[in-house]
């Protein structure tokens, strides 16, 4: 365990040193983050200018969903996506055969491909996302209980696990169909998680809860805050998170066996 934590520290250091070489990128990154914050909040403001609430979702709770979406997305861009993209993205290690060198290392392979690359600029998004979340929870006011808050944090963590498991599973498919950008399909669908599932029609709600469960990542934690979460849903989403993680790890192991290196 100590050994793995130490490795993560080394990976972070190496990635940060690489990124800091391009300092002007920091300003551009800041600009992008502020723009996405502005467009996200403004689009909610426009919507709730017209209606008080939609299907029981009011401004504060919807803002909380946006906050969770931004926070989770920032964590994803901090290390999960950069690491997995360098494995299976355009010019990734699977296509170029660079994965050979990863496989030779005496460390757990799934650990190595999941934590290898870090992107420091995502920390700006993380700060903004947490800020939105705090503002939203303050606006929700007295309806938030301390048990609600604790359940929220637990579900946020399990939502992170769900996101990681889905991304890992989509990444593992590169071993069967190299070149197809499965993670792009997912990031399109994940965009839908910036609004509560209640704002979508029934059939789509089912798809986004159980088939591609992006709803578990953002909507369900906020339901714990508003007190709309049924206990069965809490158990169900924790069980689904555990199941997905096991299934995705298995898929990655099976996929890895199919890896046959590149021509050289």
């Amino acid at each position, binding site marked *: 365990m100590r050994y793995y934590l130490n490795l993560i520290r080394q990976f972070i250091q190496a990635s940060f040193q690489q990124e800091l070489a391009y300092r002007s990128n920091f300003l551009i990154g800041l600009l992008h983050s502020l*723009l996405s914050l502005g467009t996200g909040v403004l*689009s909610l403001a426009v919507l709730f200018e017209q209606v008080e609430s939609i299907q029981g979702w009011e401004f504060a709770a919807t803002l909380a969903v946006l906050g969770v979406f931004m926070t989770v997305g920032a964590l994803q861009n901090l290390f999960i996506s950069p690491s997995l993209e360098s494995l299976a993205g355009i010019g990734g290690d699977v296509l170029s055969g660079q994965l050979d060198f990863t496989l030779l290392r005496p460390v757990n392979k799934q650990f190595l491909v999941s934590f290898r690359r870090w992107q420091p600029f995502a920390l700006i998004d993380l700060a903004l996302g947490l800020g939105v979340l705090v503002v939203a929870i303050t606006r929700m006011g007295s309806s938030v209980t301390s048990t609600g808050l604790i359940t929220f944090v637990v579900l946020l963590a399990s939502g992170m696990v769900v996101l990681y498991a889905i991304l890992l599973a989509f990444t593992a498919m590169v071993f069967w169909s190299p070149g197809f950008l499965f993670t792009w399909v997912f990031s399109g*669908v994940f965009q839908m998680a910036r609004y509560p599932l209640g704002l979508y029609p029934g059939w789509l709600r089912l798809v986004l809860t159980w088939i591609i469960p992006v709803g578990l990542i953002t909507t369900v934690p906020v339901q714990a805050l508003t007190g709309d979460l049924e206990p069965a849903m809490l158990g169900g989403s924790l069980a689904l998170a555990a199941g997905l993680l096991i299934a995705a790890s298995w898929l990655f192991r099976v996929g890895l066996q199919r890896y046959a290196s590149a021509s050289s």
Partner: protein
Amino acid sequence: MNHRGGWALIQRTWLSWMQYRSFFFLLAFGWMIPPLIYLFVWSTAAGSQDVGGISRGEFVAYYLILILVNQLTYSQTNWTVGDEICYGRMNQMLLYPMSPLYHALASEIAGKVVYMIFVVPVTVVLALVLRPELHAGPGEVLAFIPALVLAWLLRFFWGYWLALLAFWAARSDALVAVQDALVFLLAGQIAPVALLPGALQDLAIALPFRYMVGFPVEVITGQVSGSAMITGFVIQIGWTVAAMLLYRVMWQRGLRRYTAIGG
């Protein structure tokens, strides 16, 4: 101008793009998602009663047409031309016996055809499932066509002159990101312009972004008509001419500054 050579280039580009169609289908899928989200959100909001005088079915029609218009007018030269200048690939284009504008036009046309092969069937299926309500008479359709053509011209030349800033600044993509955010907010994506609150609505009407996407959709769905439509057309034509002039000035000034090695 060498139009025959230009046409050959367009054909060549289209054929080479079709090879990678699954990649472009993925891009088109990604671009469809944001308007699709607002389609669902607004039509749910208008489920029991009209919002701002627009019914559920009318929201569906508005956004389905917006998906098509957005895809048709989307300007990819925004991104590609800037890179070509930065990395010096502009050299090769300048050697061709025709204006480099043809390269942009060629990828524009190739892209539009490839995206439409994906987007049109998806939109038709969505229309069958979501039951849109569109009351467009021949008048609206007739006004829609010039509005759409102008929207494409405006977005194309607007994106092109912004991309030409790369002659002066290495990171002009920051400005492109700002303009994409403005398109998102003001072009009718997050809400039809009529539903934007006061100050935002005034901005949307004055700035060029609404005339790149939202305006043609408002015309065909009848959200804008009469004198408001005429004013809209005047502003749209004004911005289109301005964008073309900006393109000419930037191109002539920029080309004098352009230096690159190899190619």
